[in-house]
């Protein structure tokens, strides 16, 4: 399982695939907001929590189809499925690798981008905390969507349609946490709910993903 995790990390770093692209996409989304709504700093400060969370979520979505697609096409996934490692373990390793290469960099990149959007001072800590806690849920739910659509040619659009509704609770709790921090209300309760959602996804989604992979491989 660790070997698979390390392999996926290496592939992501060396092929120059999703790693930088997701960050660049996040930057562009954030950059587009002032173009769309104007550069009024007060307005930007008010919508910054939502924009940062939506931007991170979309950037995460962009790299989801890489989790299983390439391994499915060249047959690696069939080999992995016949290995002693259960499919659940494979999805855990792959979703974790996806988080390290996408969720973690997005969390760090959110700080300078938050500054660009004039995010108020006290919210930075909570922005990082909510993204660090919330993005694993995005990766594990996303891995499920990727497992469902792995056999479909040009399934990218369908993947978004399936995964985005599942992201709604995560987005709500994540964005509320940061908004509360901006408003000076204690954001701890929503952060704890977000953490609960993440634990729920991390523990249960790999089973669903493994079921979906099994249906796709036979």
């Amino acid at each position, binding site marked *: 399982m660790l070997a698979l995790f390390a392999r996926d990390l290496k592939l992501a770093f060396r092929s120059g695939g999703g790693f930088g692209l997701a960050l660049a996409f996040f930057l562009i989304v954030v950059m587009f907001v002032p173009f769309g709504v104007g550069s009024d700093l007060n307005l930007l400060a008010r919508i910054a929590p939502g924009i940062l969370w939506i931007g991170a979520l979309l950037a995460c979505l962009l790299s989801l189809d890489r989790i299983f697609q390439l391994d499915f096409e060249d047959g690696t996934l069939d080999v992995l499925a016949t290995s002693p490692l259960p499919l659940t373990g494979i999805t855990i390793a792959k979703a974790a690798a996806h988080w390290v290469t996408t969720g973690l960099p997005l969390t760090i990149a959110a700080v300078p981008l938050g500054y660009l959007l004039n995010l108020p001072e006290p919210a930075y800590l909570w922005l990082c905390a909510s993204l660090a806690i919330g993005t694993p849920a995005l990766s594990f739910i996303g891995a499920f969507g990727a497992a469902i659509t792995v056999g479909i040619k040009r399934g990218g659009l369908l993947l978004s349609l399936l995964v985005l*509704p599942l992201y*709604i609770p995560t987005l709500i709790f994540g964005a*509320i946490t940061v908004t509360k921090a901006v408003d000076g209300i204690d954001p701890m309760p929503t952060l704890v709910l977000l953490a609960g959602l993440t634990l729920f996804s991390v523990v249960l*989604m790999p089973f669903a993903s493994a079921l979906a992979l099994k249906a796709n491989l036979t």
Partner: protein
Amino acid sequence: MSFWEYANPVKFMRLTGRLLPFLSVLTGICLVTGIIWGFFGTPDDYKQGSTVKIIFIHVPAATMAVSAWFMMLVTSLVWLIRRHHISALAAKAAAPIGMTLTLIALGTGAIWGKPMWGTYWAWDPRLTSFMILFVFYLGYIALWNAVEDSDTAADLTAILCMVGSVFAFLSRYAVNFWNQGLHQSASIAVNKEQHVDSAYIYPLFLCFAGFFLLFVTLVFIRTRTEIRLRRAAALQARNT
């Protein structure tokens, strides 16, 4: 005599073929009398005027839209556990009906909302969660259409329905939270059930029965169509 006997397509077709005429007639009677009684046989509300009568379509449609998803969840579980093809086909047949009922609920709600709330749409938790339900239906139907192999499609949509149910449920309560978290608590309460007068309740029950029967009838018809499509495909495969 076991319930599972009707997992056999031939027996299912025979039973539903016999039931359908009665069901259709009963649906017609319930819906027509319920709606006519509701629209013309009840007094206007002192505050809402005649707009209150949209309740006879709105509330049953909304209830059945949620029930349809629940029925899909049950049939999906039956497919995953017992591998009865009819079960998977019934889930497939129910999805577009559920989606239409969701749309009807949203549409009639908007028509009622304009004169009453002064707006077609508000980001009220209940409205928002119905929009979310609609998106779940869209994804489910799109997945059925995208997968070519029918058994794989049944597997994948059943899994999606299970996971989707959990997240739709989570969204329903997360949305409540979001409304309290971002706005003042809603000034409009949609607690209609407590305020329904006895003058409205009997035609409303008739409409509930009518919509329920309509759903069952349509699911039977569509499932029969799916079974016939399978048979036609099997015949075609044999001839070539």
